[in-house]
């Protein structure tokens, strides 16, 4: 309940969030010293205003050419028992001037964890990442994507779980029991960037009659063999990526209705690290609605260190992304090539430039992104991001976004 987003309430109060989290952490079994404990809580976080400018005219009346929003995240953490036990609570919230679906809050983390010898246990809300490639994160399945935060899909919603991990001589095993499903977030009819037909989250449908209460299960084995890092994963439960079916909402308007299927999938991820070259592959085999299909992504990352006798590094990334369902998969990356560059100045301000493009080899659609970031002083961090969708034919799944090119500026103040 605590982790359900309340997108309707625009008046977000961080103070209320902090109070909620403190109550939550105090309610967990803390053995004796609850008083000392609260004194030991470390608090950190950031607050980050954001401006967005869209270069093309909107295609819906509620949409606009610019947007302002502000986000904040606070981390409360406390460790005891020689750091073998800890509690972390991390609420996140955003208020958006135009998009009420983008105004939302979430508990990114709210977990108790304990290490006992070679074993580690976690219970609560947490985030887990699987995978090695940079452009698409195909096998990363534990957490739902918080799509309103970023179209690149890298922002995630907190996932309730019970996790058991053990590291042995023959590798690391992680087991996850996922008792509650989180629906993907989508912008409202007023939000941008967005699909031309808005997604109606409220009418989401499920294959399982248990809907979001279906208990999912996942496991992962990983190990390192000299230059090779290898992982094997298994997941069964509710797909994180819904199928979007056109339909009518309660007021009779055309909307896209998310349908969450039950899936079983196995995945593999491999990285070979050979001096300045990284070779990466990740792939999955999934069974969904009676059909089996395969998705994979692989490529290289090469870094030129100290270019032109400066401290600067230039990294080059090239990856190929494949989906054997082809172009009608709803997944925009079915036969695509990504090429990117990362230029790190390695200066005091950690100035970094990231530029990349994904080209669809079937439709020739091209999406470009450029990110620039640096620190200002000790506590401020500035990020500028530009995204462009060009040459996108109607047949391409990204066509909907092709009138949503934007420039985004974020300035975070850390505390």
């Amino acid at each position: 309940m605590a982790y359900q987003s309340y997108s309707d309430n625009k008046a977000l109060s961080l103070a209320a969030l902090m109070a909620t989290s403190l109550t939550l952490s105090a309610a967990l079994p803390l053995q004796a010293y609850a008083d000392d404990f609260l004194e030991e809580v470390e608090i950190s976080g950031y607050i980050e205003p954001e401006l967005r400018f869209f270069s093309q005219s909107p295609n819906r009346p509620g949409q606009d050419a610019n947007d302002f929003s502000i986000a904040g995240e606070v981390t409360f953490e406390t460790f005891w028992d020689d750091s073998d036990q800890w509690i972390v609570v991390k609420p996140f919230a955003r208020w958006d001037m135009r998009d009420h679906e983008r105004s939302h809050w979430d508990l990114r983390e709210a977990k108790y964890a304990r290490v006992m010898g070679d074993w580690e246990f976690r219970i609560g809300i947490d985030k887990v990442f699987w995978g090695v490639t940079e452009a698409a994160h195909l096998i990363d399945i534990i957490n739902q994507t918080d799509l309103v935060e970023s179209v690149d899909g890298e922002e995630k919603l907190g996932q309730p779980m019970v996790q058991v991990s053990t590291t042995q001589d023959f590798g690391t095993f992680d087991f996850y029991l996922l008792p509650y499903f989180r629906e993907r977030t989508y912008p409202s009819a007023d939000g941008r960037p967005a699909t031309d037909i808005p997604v109606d989250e409220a009418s989401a449908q499920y294959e399982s009659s248990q809907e979001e209460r279906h208990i999912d299960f996942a496991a992962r084995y990983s190990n390192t063999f000299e230059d090779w890092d290898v992982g094997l994963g298994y997941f069964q439960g509710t797909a994180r990526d819904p199928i979007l079916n056109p339909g009518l909402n309660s007021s009779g308007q055309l909307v896209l209705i998310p349908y969450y299927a039950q899936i079983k999938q196995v995945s593999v991820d491999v990285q070979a690290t050979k001096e300045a070259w990284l070779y990466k592959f990740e792939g999955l085999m999934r069974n969904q609605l009676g059909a089996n299909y395969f998705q994979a992504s692989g490529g290289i990352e090469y870094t030129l260190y100290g270019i032109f006798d400066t401290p600067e590094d230039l990294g080059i990334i090239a990856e190929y992304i494949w989906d054997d369902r082809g172009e009608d998969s709803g997944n925009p990356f079915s036969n695509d090539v990504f090429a990117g560059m990362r230029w790190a100045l390695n200066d005091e301000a950690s100035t970094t430039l990231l530029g990349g493009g994904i080209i669809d080899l079937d439709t020739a659609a091209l999406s470009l992104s450029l990110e620039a970031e640096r620190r200002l002083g000790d506590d401020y961090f500035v990020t500028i991001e530009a995204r462009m969708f060009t040459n996108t034919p109607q047949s391409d799944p990204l066509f909907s976004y092709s009138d949503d090119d934007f420039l985004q500026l974020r300035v975070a103040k850390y505390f």
Partner: protein
Amino acid sequence: MATKALNFCSYTLGLIIAALTLALPLSISAALAEVPGLPDASDPDARGLAIATESDSRDHGFKDSQANLKMILTNAYGETSERELRFLTLENVDPNDGDWNLIVFDRPRDVKGTSLLTYAHILEADDQWMYLPALKRVKRISSTNKSGPFMGSEFAFEDFSAQELGKYSYKWLRDEPCGERTCHVVEQTPQYENSGYTRQIGWTDTTDYQLRKSEFYDRKNQLLKTLEFTDYQLHLDKYWRAHNLKMTNHQTGKGTTLTWDSYAFQTGLEEKDFSKNALKRAR
């Protein structure tokens, strides 16, 4: 040993030594203070290696250590910025392999929680993983970036990696006074690939066998940086650690000062505290 040898000396040799004793009291006292058994100046390579070996052996058996580090970066205009990190180190008992360490970044705040796990090797590339807390992602990274700046500072990654004996070849240059002490001046040349240095010159004192100063020469053999070690403190009655390190870059005018505190040794760290899962929960 020097006094023993005198018994068998001829009268003339005795006179010469007496004269030298008067003329060069410093170098003689240096020779007397150094550890017994060092090869003499006629074999500078052997003498250099023996000095480095002695210095290395003084650190054997520390098992593990934990310490906090504050870095102050100063640019050419005198403006400063700060970094705070925590270091965990596990001694590798295998003399043919390097130590393990885990570095956790606390400041600047935007990188809080980022951590770096390194299994150092002698001549082969180190194994290195980085944990990015915002994505909860552990990423194996290339360790060929030896000469790159560490967190934008004047310290390169290779300046932070474990100073394993086998990483360099050594050549003794001379003995000379260094402050109130006497130092062996030894040139060391990296044997591993991708170093940013052609050579380093180190001043190791003849009583505790600790580095007091180092000079770094860039790939064009120009003097690049000087590192001064001060505020040495003795831990567990055996292990010396400099608590203040000052690096000056002569080519850019920038500098970085490291201040170590809360050193703790033999804290019971084990291999499992240096796993990829441990990297994710490091604090």
